[in-house]
């Protein structure tokens, strides 16, 4: 699949944004994080900013963005529509929670809004995951690894962001650092497991079933067009094995290994502001790493239409 930057950025940014929102909603709502004006403003600004930037980016991917409102109508059948509905719906409790938290401090309805925002965030990330997980033509996505992956990476990037936020405000805590570290390790493990699964994938759909020509080998002789068309540009993206291996290495370094190392250092109680710097660095590096991971998520996904082209 073509790794369009708009979609790569969209899923990465909203994943991190919703992860952060969910954590702020729960932890802030339940009072584990103090209701501080600047912390709230920056924290919620960051979360909602990432979400909004992601959503805008995804709208940029549309052929007719002015009709985007129509996407809220088909929630009964379409995960994309559900994502649209959920993402917009989440803005309501998230907005209320943010306002409440920033301006009014923690009160009952703020807690409720926070928890609702957290639920909204989780639901939205689930719908995003399901958009991909539901696509049968792409075996690498249509697996039990996809939805948990989206959730894990969301809460992972969210927790690392939260940690950097708290550390920046010098109110970091070891449980948060530890959680972020553990989630990063979990994400790493999950990604490795996903890759392992995908690399060993035996796909029932072959050039034989695609053409109805049973037995033996089916080799593409000539395409219907000698130049690249929409199908090949959108779904025929190919990445060399060597190139993919290199990018997997970069993903592991940036998204998991370096952040884990930084968080470990933070855990070993380095002095402030070093912990803050390391924490922020961990978040930035991880974000970059997840962008690479998401790019690979697309680039390594093989659509069945490529079977028709012998790719």
């Amino acid at each position, binding site marked *: 699949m073509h790794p369009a930057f708009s979609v790569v950025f969209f899923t990465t940014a909203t994943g991190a944004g919703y992860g952060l929102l969910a954590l702020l909603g729960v932890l802030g709502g339940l009072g584990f994080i103090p209701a501080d004006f600047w912390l709230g403003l920056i924290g919620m600004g960051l979360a909602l900013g990432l979400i909004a930037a992601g959503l805008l980016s995804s709208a940029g*991917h549309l052929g007719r963005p002015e009709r985007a409102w129509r*996407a809220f109508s088909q929630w009964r059948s*379409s995960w994309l529509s559900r994502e649209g509905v959920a993402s917009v719906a989440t803005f309501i409790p998230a907005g209320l929670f943010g306002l409440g938290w920033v301006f009014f401090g923690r009160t009952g309805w703020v807690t409720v809004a926070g928890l609702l925002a957290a639920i909204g965030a989780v639901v939205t990330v689930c719908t995003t995951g399901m958009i991909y997980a539901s696509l049968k033509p792409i075996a690498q996505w249509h697996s039990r690894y996809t939805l948990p992956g989206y959730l894990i990476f969301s809460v992972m990037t969210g927790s690392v962001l939260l940690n950097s936020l708290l550390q920046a405000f010098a109110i970091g805590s070891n449980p948060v650092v530890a959680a972020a570290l553990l989630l990063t390790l979990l994400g790493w493990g999950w990604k490795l497991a996903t890759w392992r699964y995908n690399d060993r994938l035996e796909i029932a*759909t072959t050039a034989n079933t695609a053409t*109805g020509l049973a037995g033996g*080998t089916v080799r593409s002789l000539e395409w219907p067009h000698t*130049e690249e068309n*929409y199908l090949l540009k*959108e779904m025929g993206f190919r990445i060399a094995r060597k190139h993919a291996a290199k990018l997997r290495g970069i993903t592991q370094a940036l998204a998991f290994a370096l952040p884990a190392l930084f968080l470990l250092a933070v855990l070993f109680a380095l002095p402030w502001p070093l912990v803050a710097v390391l924490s922020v660095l961990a978040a930035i590096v991880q974000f970059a790493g997840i962008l690479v991971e998401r790019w690979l998520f697309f680039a390594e996904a093989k659509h069945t239409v490529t079977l028709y082209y012998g790719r």
Partner: protein
Amino acid sequence: MTCLPTHTDKKLGLVIDLDTCVGCQACVTACKEWNTGGHMAPLTDIDPYGGDVDGVWFNRVHSYEHTTEAGGRTVNFPRSCLHCETPACVTVCPTGASYKRASDGIVLIDESKCIGCKLCSWACPYGAREFDTDVGVMKKCTLCVDRIYNDNLAEEDRVPACVAACPTSARHFGDLGDPASAVSQLVASRGGVDLMPEMGYKPTNKYLPPRAHTERAASVAAPRLEAVKAEGGFLGWVDRMLSN
């Protein structure tokens, strides 16, 4: 409405005979020609005279080399929308632009609702949908919905453009939901198959596989030729034949 109809009155579709298709591209351009002025007009062509030429087409013909233990064969393979019974391209659509008609089972796009998110093209395993970057919407085969019922065409012409054009008669059109229809019987007699049945999309269109090598030329069970047994060999035989 992107929920699928629980039942369609008809299952209109195509039957494509891979034993007969010579890959001449007649169906391809007949489709392009009709449809570029038809229901989803235009089928835009980007950079049509340059190096990055890329146009919207509803029907494309591939060719393959199919090699089995029995030997090799070149197969020409037309590919277009299969008007599936349970098409995910419809259900994934967030806006209701993609839909399956309850009356005849044709899968269509209501262009005015399409936001161009391209997800339907991801959901289609067959590559049946092509995006028109100029208009910003997805386009696809309409099974010539603007021909098959068209009062302004002579009744005999109310078939999809690809079927009307096909010089080898490798394309057939009809109601695959009616077991008595000519297309259903053709599928039954020739062992028509679904493409990617494992996807579970239940394509309406069927493909008739090439004649198996073992069945080939069953009509010619010729004994080996033996040299004529006549005095004087062949020439003697000629003389004898002429004398008779």
